[in-house]
């Protein structure tokens, strides 16, 4: 298997923005308003989740159950995908497969063009963000409008979602009002959230009514029944999948579950982990296109199954756990790094801890080399993940892949690209010292004796901290002295 063979034209636009991680971080850390928007939002979501999952017995039982469900579905993945395809086809839903984002976009554009579609309304779909579908459709003269309120705001602002559940979480109501004023004709200025939503609603209802195509994501694809399940609060997902005559759903291959009965526990933890809701306002289950005697619903329904690095995650037992993710966003809500730098700094479609573990597979480790290291490994993400993905462990693993020497067996695209000779040298010297007790003690003896030589400035460390001071004598020495004193007594 050659994972490095990628057509450069296929490179996602996010590769470049991910490479700019460090610059993005400096830019966003300097933005106080942004930081306070994120802090406020994260506090709110953390609190919501805590209230909704207050029974730790229930929580831990469900997390274990959901982890096992997803792991079972992953072990059976290729067969479930075949079963899903068969069932969907029998139900009248057309299934397409795409290995790359370019293929996925091409498939979708072709379906739309075959029906002479000109306008698309899109329900929230992170996978379509992953493929940058909007850009592609626009380049083919197809108008593509985001209809989730948050996504709509982000689209007006010509930005990307900064959170997978709440795309416009980085903006406050004043900023949204200014944005609407610039973009919505006849906008009556207000910072009242209800009034803002009403004006957004009016614009979008018009679009729903007239759109040729609805595009949506999928939260669970049920193999047993051939059903696409969508979780949402606004009703835009129902609009996109019901009103236009053509519905195209796009999802990652990992979203398939085996049984319908797998859905309730996953759904329960998904909504509670995400926003603290017992359930979302709508849980939409689509199993057929419009049937003969029915009066509404799309005449055609398509599903595009996307790989884009997922089969690479699948090819390693440890990294495969990445695919358990149900995209609840809890890991980012609890992440102290995400809370500080916000969602855009990552430069990737999926920000936060989940972004750090999926993006290297989608964009390659070379473009994302700064993501796995930008973590204090505090473990807050792993602690809340509803499907128990050991995120910190996977970050460590990606760090290992990133600095692997040349010639190591190929596990992922871009592995070894983070290895710097200087750093590798430091660690080999470090290892040599610390694995030889005598050498270690001698070094420490010298270090402590020469502590007056220790610089007061230690690079990044002393920008905000004073340098630590070496002790006059090491613990090893002091204990030895203590033992000798005791013997002497």
């Amino acid at each position, binding site marked *: 298997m050659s994972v490095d063979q990628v057509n450069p034209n296929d490179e996602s636009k996010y590769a470049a923005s991910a490479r700019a991680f460090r610059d993005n971080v400096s830019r966003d850390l300097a933005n106080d308003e942004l930081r306070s928007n994120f802090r406020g939002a994260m506090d709110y979501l953390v609190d919501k989740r805590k209230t909704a999952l207050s029974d730790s017995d229930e929580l831990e039982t469900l997390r274990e159950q959901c982890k096992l469900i997803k792991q079972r579905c992953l072990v059976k993945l290729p067969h479930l995908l075949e079963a899903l395809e068969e069932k969907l086809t029998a139900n009248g839903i057309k299934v397409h497969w795409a290995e790359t984002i370019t293929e996925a976009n091409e498939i979708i554009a072709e379906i739309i063009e075959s029906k002479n579609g000109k306008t698309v309304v899109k329900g929230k779909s992170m996978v379509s963000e992953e493929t940058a579908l909007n850009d592609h459709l626009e380049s083919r003269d197809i108008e593509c409008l985001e209809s989730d309120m948050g996504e709509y705001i982000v689209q007006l602002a010509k930005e990307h979602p900064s959170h997978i559940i709440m795309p416009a979480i980085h903006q406050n109501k004043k900023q949204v009002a200014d944005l609407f004023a610039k973009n919505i004709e006849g906008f009556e200025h207000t910072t009242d959230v209800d009034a803002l939503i009403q004006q957004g609603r009016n614009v979008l209802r018009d679009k729903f009514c007239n759109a040729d195509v609805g595009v949506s994501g999928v939260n669970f694809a049920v193999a047993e029944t051939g059903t696409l399940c969508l979780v949402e609060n606004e009703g835009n997902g129902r609009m996109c999948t019901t009103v236009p005559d053509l519905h195209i759903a796009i999802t990652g291959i990992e979203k398939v579950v085996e049984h319908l009965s797998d859905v309730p526990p996953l759904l329960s933890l998904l909504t509670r982990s995400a926003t603290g809701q017992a359930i979302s306002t709508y849980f939409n289950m689509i199993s057929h296109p419009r049937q003969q005697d029915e009066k509404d619903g799309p005449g055609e329904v398509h599903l595009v199954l996307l790989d884009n690095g997922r089969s690479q995650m699948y090819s390693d037992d440890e990294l495969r756990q990445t695919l358990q993710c149900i995209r609840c966003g809890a890991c980012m809500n609890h992440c102290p790094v995400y809370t500080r730098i916000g969602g855009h700094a990552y430069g990737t479609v999926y920000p936060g801890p989940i972004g750090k573990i999926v993006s290297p597979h989608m964009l390659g480790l070379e473009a994302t080399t700064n993501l796995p290291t*930008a973590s204090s*490994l505090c473990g807050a993400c792993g602690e809340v993940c509803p499907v128990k993905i050991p995120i910190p462990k996977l970050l460590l693993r990606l760090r290992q892949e990133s600095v692997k020497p040349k010639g190591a067996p190929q596990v992922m695209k871009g592995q070894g690209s983070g290895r710097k000779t200087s750093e590798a040298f430091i660690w080999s010297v470090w290892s040599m010292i610390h*694995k030889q007790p005598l050498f270690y003690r001698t070094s420490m003896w010298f270090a402590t004796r020469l502590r007056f030589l220790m610089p007061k400035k230690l690079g990044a460390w002393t920008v905000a901290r004073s340098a630590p001071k070496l002790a006059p004598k090491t613990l090893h020495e002091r204990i030895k002295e203590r033992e000798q004193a005791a013997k002497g007594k």
Partner: protein
Amino acid sequence: MSQVNTLHLRDYPKNPTKVYLYGTCLADSLFPDSGIDAIEFLERQGIEVIFPQGQSCCGQPAYNSGYTDEAKAVALEQIRHFPLDIPIVIISGSCGGMMRHHYKDLLKDEPGIEKFCDRIFEFTEFLVNSLNVQLNDSGPAERVALHTSCAARREMGVHITGKKLIEQLDNVELVTHDYESECCGFGGTFSVKHGDISNVMVSDKTKNLVNADVVRYVSADWGCMMNINGSLEHQKESLRGEHIASYLLARNAMDNTGDKS
């Protein structure tokens, strides 16, 4: 029993008479007092403490940087120096997490590694769960905060034990600070590789500690304290952290009757 989370459930040796101490590399060269104080404290509980001179570092810095082979060589050397089947008490939660959990992966081919890992106990959990220590507070009344390292909290599940110990001190008021469970931003090489993010995190942590209006904060992790104290000093704040071993030793007057009724 309301927790189904079995990660941190474990058996504790009852009334051990002899333990090893793992000092950690940070305490060794920077903060040796806490190692001495931990030994003193344990000895006062009637326990013989062995400090193998062959120990150096648990390997975490290299391991967390992705340099597995280098970490492994160091880790292998450590386990050689703790041959007796007695508890290994470690005065840092994060090194504890490394040796108790990550060694199982890192050294998975090493025979007996599971048993070695199961002998690792963080200082406060050992005091509470193995020794069931009863403290007599002989110090003045004061307000303190507790900072529990993320590893202690999440890998070792010992955020409870530090609290239990401080709460035994009659004259000490344990103050909860805002965002207490949030990371201080240390994370080893993270604080250097991504200094700007780490700086913001530690600034917030110190602000919350200072706002708690305490005379000191106590922690069982030198990594975090080096970070937090360094930041406090840089900001010219007088607040400092103290290792829990030193703090308990100073406050617990075993020989005094104290004013406990």
